C-alpha cells in the first residue's frame, strides 16, 4: 500500500549565536494508512519540531515531505493551509479545543472548514463522538468537560474530516495514567479502523502498547525504529531499559 506520509532526509537547522543546531537531522520515515507510530526520545531531541515539519507549519531547511502523495513544501502558503485542513488531523497537548464551541461544534468546525458540513457530515460527527463515549456531552463547552473528555473530543475533531494523517503531540500529557491509557487506546483503535496514518509524540513509554511502530529520536536523528510486536510489547513494559 502507498504511504500516507513519507519524508526524505528532512532537516531543520537553527543558527543561534554563530552555532548551528540541528533540531531535526536527515530524518527519513514513512507511515502507511492504518499504521500508528509513536515518536519518542529525550527532551530536546526534535520530536515536536519533526511534527511541525510534517504538519506543514514549519519549513524544513532541507529534504522533502510528502503527504498522500503531495509534496508539502511545493505548495503556496494558501494551498498549504487548505491542504492542512483537508489532509491533517491534529491533537495537541492541551487547550486543544475552541473554548466557545461545544463538543459537537468543535468537531463540526473541521468539516465546516472544508465545506463539508452537511446533514450526513453532522451525523458522522455525532457518531464519532458517540463512539468516543461522549454521546451525552455533545452540547458541553470544553470548560464543562474533564481533561480526558476534552482530549476525546480532540480525537473526534482530528478524525472527522477523514484526513490522511493524524498528528498528536503528547496528547496525554495533562491526563492521569488511567485516562491516558483510555485516550491512547481509543486513538489507536480508530486510527486502525479508519486507516489513517497516525503519529503520536509521547514521553510515556507505556503508551507505546497500542502502536505498530516506535521511532526513537536523539539529537534530531532517528536513533532506532522498533517494528516487531514482541519488542514493542517489551518496550512498553519498560524491560528494554
Amino acid at each position: 500500500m502507498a504511504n500516507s506520509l513519507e519524508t526524505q532526509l528532512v532537516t531543520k537547522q537553527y543558527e543561534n549565536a554563530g552555532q548551528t543546531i540541528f533540531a531535526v537531522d536527515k530524518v527519513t520515515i514513512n507511515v502507511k494508512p492504518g499504521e500508528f507510530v509513536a515518536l519518542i526520545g529525550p527532551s530536546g531531541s526534535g520530536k515536536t519540531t519533526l511534527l511541525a515539519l510534517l504538519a506543514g507549519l514549519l519549513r524544513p531547511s532541507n529534504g522533502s515531505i510528502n503527504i498522500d502523495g503531495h509534496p508539502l513544501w511545493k505548495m503556496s502558503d494558501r494551498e498549504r493551509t487548505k491542504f492542512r485542513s483537508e489532509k491533517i488531523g491534529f491533537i495537541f497537548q492541551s487547550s486543544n479545543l475552541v473554548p466557545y464551541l461545544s463538543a459537537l461544534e468543535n468537531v463540526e468546525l473541521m468539516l465546516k472548514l472544508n465545506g463539508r458540513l452537511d446533514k450526513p457530515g453532522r451525523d458522522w460527527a455525532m457518531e464519532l463522538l458517540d463512539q468516543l463515549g461522549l454521546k451525552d456531552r455533545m452540547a458541553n463547552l470544553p470548560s464543562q468537560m474533564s481533561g480526558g473528555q476534552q482530549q476525546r473530543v480532540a480525537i473526534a475533531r482530528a478524525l472527522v474530516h477523514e484526513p490522511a494523517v493524524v498528528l498528536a503531540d503528547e496528547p496525554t500529557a495533562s491526563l492521569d495514567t488511567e485516562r491516558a491509557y483510555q485516550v491512547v487506546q481509543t486513538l489507536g483503535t480508530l486510527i486502525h479502523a479508519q486507516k489513517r496514518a497516525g503519529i503520536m509524540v509521547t514521553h510515556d513509554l507505556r503508551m507505546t502498547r497500542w502502536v505498530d511502530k516506535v521511532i526513537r529520536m536523539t539529537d534530531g536523528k532517528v536513533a532506532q525504529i522498533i517494528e516487531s510486536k514482541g519488542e514493542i510489547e517489551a518496550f512498553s513494559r519498560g524491560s528494554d531499559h
Partner: protein
Amino acid sequence: MVTDTIQTGVRPVSGKSRRYRTQLGLPVPIHLALKEVWRNKGRFFLISSVVALITLLVLFIAGLTEGLGQGNREYIENLNAQLVVYQDKADLSIPTSRMSQATVRQLRQVDGVEAVGAVAFSNVSIPLPGGKAPLKVSLIGVLPGEPGEPDVTQGRALRSKRADETVIDAGVASRTGLKVGDMLTVRSTLGSKEQLYDLRIVGIAPSSQYFIAPSIFVPYITWDKVRPQPLSTLETGQDPDVSFNVAAVRLKNPSDAPAVSKIINAKVKEIVAVNLQTAYENTPGYSAQQSTLGLMRVFTLLIGLLVIGGFFRIQTMQKVAQIGVLKAIGTSSASVAVSSIMQILTINSFGVLLGAIMTFGLAAGLPSAVPIRFVGSAVISSVASLLVIGPLGGLASIQVLLKAEPLRALGLAS
C-alpha cells in the same frame, strides 16, 4: 471503559466520492464570531456598556454644543434676511453696535436691497406665578413688516408701530403657558425703579432664542419704552434719534449677498455688513464656547478610541494560543481576521445603539430649560465617529491576529 463502546466501523460514504449537500449553519468567520459573542455574553456586554457610556458622554457634549449654539444663533439664523449690518467700530458685537434711522434709509437706497429692518436687543424678565423664578427673555424690537420680524405660526404678526402688543416665541409660550390673546406682563427697570408693562400677545413665533434666552418681539417704539434704561437718557432728552443695534437686510436676490455686502461696505459710512453665519459666529462667546465643546468632544472620542482599542487588544492577546490552534487546523488568517472585525463592528454598533437609547431616555427627563438638542450636525457627526472609532481601535488587534502563529499550538514559535 470507553473503548468498549467503540465500534470499528468506518464511515459508510467516504469523502471524495460524495457530493456535499447544503452546508449547515453559517460560513466559518460568521459562525466563529457569533458563537464567541454568544458564549461570552457577559464579557462582550461589558465592552458594549463601556461603548454605550462613551456614547452617552459624547452625545451629551454634542447635544450641549448644539443646544447652546442654537440658543445663541437661533434668532439670527432664522432671520428673513441675508445680511446683518453693524456699526463698524462694534467688532460685530450686537450689544455694542449702535445705528440710526439715517443709516437704515441709506441702506434702502443700495442696489439689490429689497428691505431693511432695524433690530434692537435688550433683556427683560417675565414674572411667573406660584413663586417660580422669573423667566428671563430677550426683548427684541423690530419694525413691523420689515426684516427682523419672526415668522408667526399662530395668531398674526405685529401690525402697529407703537401698540403695546407682542409676538412671543415658542419657548416663552411653553414656559409661561400663555396663548394668543392673553396679556403678558414684563418686568423692566427705569433708573433704579422696577417697572411693569402689560403687552397683548398677538402671535406666537417658532423658537427664536438669542443669548440662550427665549425671545419676545415688540414694535420698535414699544421696545424703546419697555427696555430697561437709565434715568439720564429720559431726563436729558439726549439721543433723540433713538438708536438700535443692527439692521437686517433682505436682498432681491439672496445669491447676491457677497456682492451687495461689498457695495454696502463701500457706500454707507461707518458700518459693516456680513452674512448670517458670520453674524452669529461673532456673537460674544459663541465661537469660544463652540470650540471648547468641540475640543471636549474630540478628546472624549479619543479616549473612546483608546479604551475600545485597548479592550479588544487585550482580549486578542489572551486569545493568541487559541488562534494558533484555529490556524493550525486550517483556518485561514483572513477568516480569523474577518471574524474579529465582525465582532468588533457588532459589539461597537450595539454599544452605540445602547448609548443612544440611554441618551434619549435621559434627555426626555431633562427640564426644557436645559440647553441640550439632539439634532443637527454635531450629533450626527458624533454618532458617525463613534461608529468608526470602535473598528479603528480594533485595527490594532487585527495585526495581533494576523501575526498569531499556528506553531504556537505545538508550543513552538519563532
